[in-house]
């Protein structure tokens, strides 16, 4: 039995079809990354799985229990950290954790012991006696996650755990999630960032406009979209077509190139980029094309989307990019 099983989930808000038949599974003791741009339906999926929302159609079980017919038993098994930190600012960190423990029906003594343990674990011991109002964004997030772990959940749901964090807190959060995962906590996390999913998730489900558009491990997905990105910026727009042609010949990877006229860049999927870069520079130079910049970067969510759907992740498809 999988920790989470979802079949044909549909949800509509008025005219918006938020989910149009989502299927996914999370195996026990693994991390599933639900990857998608803003508005893809990530939060809606998480809210249905955590019993906050009822689906219009489809079936979902958590730890074998149907979320629609037996929500209270599901709640006893899950931990949820929503997209926005849900902490009572008037309580101290310790009280917040104790409060959640009590609502999971631990005894006062157990709830306090667990609170102390979690404060330590999340590096909040010193702040534990202070009210949450004075906490930084990163501290709130950590407390929020600690609150979702009070009951040692069978499945942990993290909805965009790093959105809105500064880069340093973000790295800290990654370390923390990795530790949790190493302890064997089954996790479903949502993210807008490919690198985040790649680093934290065993399996990735890519979702767009309420439908699953790709599934697989990070490597499988990258195989599909063709590895790193080589981005060349040239001096004049009329050189773009020729540049694209040359790059296509040299790189010959699965993906087609993407031309951005305004930025005067050509982007192409490439493997073994360390060898390609000097070649490309020489080739373009020989062709008399003025090269302003050559950048090698990891594929982003945008690249995944361009590849899989032909439109950019933010929805406004094909801004000035003809092929």
């Amino acid at each position, binding site marked *: 039995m999988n920790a989470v099983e979802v079949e044909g989930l549909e949800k509509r808000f008025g005219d918006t079809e938020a989910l149009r038949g989502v299927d996914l599974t999370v195996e026990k*003791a*693994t991390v599933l990354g639900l990857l998608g741009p803003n508005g893809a339906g990530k939060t809606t999926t998480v809210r249905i799985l*955590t*019993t*906050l*929302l*009822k689906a219009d159609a489809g079936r979902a079980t958590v730890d074998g229990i149907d979320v629609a017919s037996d929500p*209270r*038993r599901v*709640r*006893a*098994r*899950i931990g*949820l950290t*929503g997209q*926005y*930190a*849900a*902490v*009572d*600012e*008037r*309580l101290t960190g310790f*009280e917040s954790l104790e*409060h*959640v423990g*009590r*609502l*999971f*029906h*631990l005894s006062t003594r*157990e709830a306090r012991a667990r609170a102390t343990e979690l404060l330590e674990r999340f590096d909040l011991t010193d702040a534990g006696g202070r*009210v949450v109002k004075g906490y930084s964004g990163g501290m709130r997030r950590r407390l929020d996650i600690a*609150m979702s772990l009070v*009951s*040692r*959940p*069978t499945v942990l749901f993290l909805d965009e755990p790093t959105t809105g964090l500064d880069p340093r807190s973000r790295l800290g959060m990654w370390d923390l999630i990795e530790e949790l995962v*190493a*302890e*064997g*906590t089954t996790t479903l996390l949502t993210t807008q960032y490919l690198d985040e999913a790649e680093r934290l998730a065993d399996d990735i489900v890519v979702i767009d406009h309420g439908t699953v558009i790709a599934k697989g491990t990070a490597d499988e997905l990258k195989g599909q979209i063709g590895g790193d990105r080589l981005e060349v910026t040239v001096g004049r727009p009329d050189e773009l077509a020729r540049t694209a042609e040359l790059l296509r010949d040299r790189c010959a990877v699965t993906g087609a190139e993407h031309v951005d006229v305004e930025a005067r860049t050509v982007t192409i999927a490439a493997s073994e980029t360390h060898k390609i870069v000097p070649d490309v520079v020489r080739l373009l130079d020989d062709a008399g094309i003025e090269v302003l910049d050559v950048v090698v970067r990891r594929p982003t969510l945008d690249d995944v989307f361009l590849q899989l759907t032909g439109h950019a992740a933010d929805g406004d498809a094909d801004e000035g990019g003809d092929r």
Partner: protein
Amino acid sequence: MTTTARAAADELAPPPQREVPRGLVWVWRDSWTEALRHLRAVPRNPDLLIFATIQPIMFVLLFNYVFGGAIDVPGYDSYTQYLMPGVFAQTVLFGSAFTGIGVAEDMTKGIIDRLRSLPMYQPSVLVGRTLSDICRNIFTFVVMFIVGYIVGFRIGGSISAAIGATLLLLGFSYAFSWVQALIGLSVKSVEAANSAGFIWMFPLTFVSSAFVSTASMPQWLQTFADWNPFTKLTNAARALYTGSDPGADLWIAIAWAIGITVVFSFLAARKYSRTSR
């Protein structure tokens, strides 16, 4: 997964108390846990309590000393004796507005979402809130009673009748907490809960026998004032505090308190369970 990770995973198991306890004891316990969440916060935001008491103190001073000389209340020698039960009633009724503001705050800050994902008895979120507000209102009531004593208010009847009057006032306050809870669940922001919670309480409390005799009002207003449940409440409480017979007003006031509690706790609980599902 590595072997050490597996070992760690085993260490985490077995998880404690997976099944959900049911029954009245747990309903009460979850509600009290929620009430404690709010009560703990009270001393940390003393301004809330201070504002909740300053306003009625102002009313006492205004009505007792500024208007008092000009207001004639048949059957009462001292306007203070007439006024204070009305001020008590208004104070605890206004105190109920905190319920709506608090519920709206929990909603907008996503705290309700977290609570909804916990295996607690869900209506406890509202029961706990109303319980904590009654505790807060007891405190403001005590302050107002002391203020009343200072300006010359005295209990005229038996102590048990005075206690009965106090319980009646608090019962009314509790009933209106549920009205406010429903408002708090229905509005989109804390500010809206604030105005929607207070605005109708001014006509309700002023077009009544709380500050003046309804006989002094124009006929159409007097009709409303005489039917106003708040008039029944103040009349009953005033009679009990001053040692006269409350008559039918007492039973009518009790019926209002129970009726409002039953109807609005049902509506609020239903609204809560439907919100965002």
